[in-house]
Every structure is written in structure tokens, then in C-alpha cells.
């Protein structure tokens, strides 16, 4: 991971450039969807956010499992970074989702299964970050966070299926014309670079915090 860090600025630049291209794709290239009309275009922004938010939480799940298995601090740091980014992306997905719901159904919040799942995930991972923020022994906190990271992700499919069963509103499954599919894939792919850049940056921050702690520990040991 350390080796990747110098790549971050290039990733961010490439990501930014690609996303600008995507804006053009969304507004000009993709045809306006027949039934929903223009607001449907928010979808091209909403979906990547939600998708990469979910992917971040999946990364937290994997990193938590790896931490419990190997007890290497690296995985704990990665889980923390991924969780924070995941929460930021999921929150933005919620906002864009609400705006999309407002334009297409006239009300800010619908019991659409995907939106509900994203909301519940935001609550779960906000709780996760609260636990990470508490001052305990680093390895105890890491172990508790790892357990939470695993349990939280296992809950996501259950939340999705129960929300879908719960909500009467089944959004009309819009048929995606080929150009729409290309735009969607382009948006999700270009978002990958931004996501990776974000993750590297946040991971770097967490790593610096640990370096600071380690050097103070080392200084103490040498002066004993």
C-alpha cells in the first residue's frame, strides 16, 4: 500500500478528467429516458456513489476478517479508511437519491429498497466510526471494530431483502438503451479512480497518525 501512495495525485487527476468526460456523456450522449424524463440523469451520478459506497463497506468486511486472522495493524487501518470513505459516498448517494426521488415521485423519501438499505448502512457504519473513535487500547479497539465491521456487512443483504419486502413501491424497472449502458459503465469505471485516490489519501492520513504514535513510543523507549 505504501508503494501506491505516490500514485494518488495521478489517480485523482485521471479520475477528475474522466469524470468530466462523463458529465459530457450524461448530458449529451445518453438519450433522455422516455418515462422519467430528464431527472433520470441524476441516476448516472447516484448509482456510482451507491455502488462504490457498498464496495467500500465490502472492503471493510474483508479487512476486518484479515485483521482478526493476522492481527496486523495494516488491515485495521485499511478498514478504518474504507469505512469513512464508504460512509461519505453512501451519504452522498442518499442525498442524490433523495433528489432523484423528489423529481420523479414528488416526495423526498420513498421506501425504495435500495434507498432504505443505503440509509440503514449509513446508520450502521456511523455507529462503527463512533466505536473507532473511542479511546481504548489500540488493539482492543481494533478487535471490536473488526467484529463490528464483519457483523455490519453480513446485515446488509438482510436489510435489502426486508426493505424490498416492506416497500409497496417497486420503482418501474427502466429499460436501459445501449447508450445509457455505456454511459453508466463509463461513470462507474471513472469513479473507480476517484475512489482509489480517496482511499489512498485517507489510508495515508491514518498511517501518518500511527507513525506519529510509534515515534513517540520509540522516543520514550530510548530515553528509559
Amino acid at each position: 500500500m505504501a508503494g501506491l501512495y505516490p500514485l494518488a495525485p495521478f489517480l485523482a487527476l485521471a479520475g477528475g478528467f474522466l469524470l468530466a468526460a462523463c458529465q459530457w456523456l450524461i448530458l449529451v450522449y445518453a438519450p433522455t429516458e422516455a418515462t422519467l424524463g430528464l431527472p433520470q440523469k441524476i441516476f448516472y451520478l447516484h448509482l456510482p456513489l451507491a455502488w462504490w459506497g457498498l464496495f467500500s463497506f465490502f472492503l471493510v468486511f474483508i479487512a476486518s476478517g484479515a485483521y482478526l486472522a493476522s492481527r496486523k495493524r495494516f488491515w485495521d487501518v485499511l478498514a478504518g479508511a474504507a469505512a469513512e470513505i464508504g460512509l461519505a459516498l453512501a451519504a452522498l448517494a442518499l442525498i442524490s437519491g433523495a433528489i432523484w426521488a423528489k423529481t420523479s415521485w414528488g416526495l423526498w423519501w420513498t421506501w425504495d429498497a435500495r434507498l432504505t438499505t443505503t440509509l440503514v448502512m449509513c446508520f450502521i457504519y456511523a455507529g462503527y466510526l463512533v466505536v473507532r473513535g473511542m479511546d481504548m487500547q489500540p488493539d482492543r479497539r481494533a478487535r471490536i471494530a473488526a467484529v463490528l465491521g464483519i457483523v455490519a456487512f453480513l446485515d446488509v443483504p438482510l436489510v435489502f431483502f426486508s426493505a424490498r419486502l416492506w416497500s409497496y413501491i417497486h420503482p418501474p424497472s427502466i429499460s436501459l438503451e445501449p447508450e445509457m449502458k455505456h454511459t453508466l459503465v463509463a461513470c462507474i469505471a471513472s469513479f473507480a479512480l476517484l475512489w482509489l485516490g480517496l482511499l489512498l489519501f485517507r489510508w495515508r492520513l491514518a498511517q501518518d497518525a500511527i507513525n506519529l504514535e510509534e515515534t513517540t513510543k520509540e522516543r520514550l523507549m530510548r530515553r528509559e
Partner: protein
Amino acid sequence: MLKAALLIASKDLRLTMGRGSGLLQALLLGLLLIFVFSLSLTPGQRMSAQGAAAIFWMASAFCQVLIFSTLYGLEEINGQRQGLVLAPSPAQGVWLGKALAGLCLLVASQTLFLPATIVFLGQEISDLWRLGLAIVIIGDIGIVAIGSLLGALSQGQSARESLLSIVLFPLLAPLFLGGIRIGSAVFSGKLSEGADGWFGIALAFDAIFVASALALFPSVYNAEE
């Protein structure tokens, strides 16, 4: 592991049933919640079946947070947690013991919440009550499975009840939705879509979280301060 779990559960039940320290507090909180929500009704008005079911499950969840905070608090008085960790049986025995004790206390509390919901929120039981009984049992198993795991996690922290709630409630969302939908069917007598979907989710929930609690509990419950 089972013998240790039963031993711990019986010890905990004897302690909490004692001078009503733990159980009474949790029970009063639940009943108070139901009563306070009944104030939202104009006299003679009846709450919707779904509203009443939601309040019943919310009272159960808050009560259960207090139950597990008390159950694990018992081990912090004179450092008994170290004794439990040193026991030859695996750590999961503690999780199972606390979960069993929590289940008994939760079911005991719910046998009071139900009449309170009927009286204060103006409901009556339809002939679908068997569904209600099933979802309560299955739901409670899931609640105590996670509650026991997370109850251990929040020990030794300040304001552990609130920490336990903010982490636990969103995780219980699938059970809440199922419990409320089936509960409102019990109160109203009609159920739009089939119940098997809900029971499928609830059983999956129990299976997933009993398994993950057994796998994860030892790394949460040890003597590290």
C-alpha cells in the same frame, strides 16, 4: 460449553431476578415507552395495528439493551470477567449463557408488554396470533444473539447503554421490519403478502448472527482492560 453456559445463565437469572435490580428497570422502561406513546392518542382513538406493533418491538429493543448492559455489568463489579475468561470452557460459553439469560428476561418482559400494548394502544388479538408468537420467538433469538455479542463489546466504556443502542438498532432493522409487519397482521387480522417471506428473512438473520457471534465472540471478550 453448554454446561458452562447453563451455569452462567442460571447464575445470572438468580442475580437479576433477585431484588429486581436489572429486570425491573428494563421492564419499567418498556412499559413507560408504551404508556408515553399512548398519550399520542386522543381518548377513545385506537392506534393503527402497525403503529402498535412498532411500539411493542421498540419497547422490547430498549428493554433488551438494558438487560444485556446489566447482565455483562454483573461481571465487572469485582473483576469476575477475568475469572470467566480463565475458565477452561471456551469463551463462547459466556456468550451463550448471557444470551439464554437475556432471552428468558426478554420473553418475561414481553409477556407484560403485550397486554400493555393491547390496553394502552387499544388493540385486540386476531386469529393470526400463532404467526405473532412465532415471529416473537424467532425475532427474540436474533435479538439476543446480537445483543449478547454487542453487550460484551460495550463493557467498560462510558455511556455503554447509548453506545450499545446506536450500534445495535440499525443492525436489527430486518427483524424490526418483519416483527412489525407480522405484528400488525396479528393486531389487524389481515396480511397483504405471504408471511413466509418474513419468516425466511428472520430465520436467515438468526442463523447468520448466531454463527458469526460464535465465531467472533472470543476476540471481543477477554481480560484486556
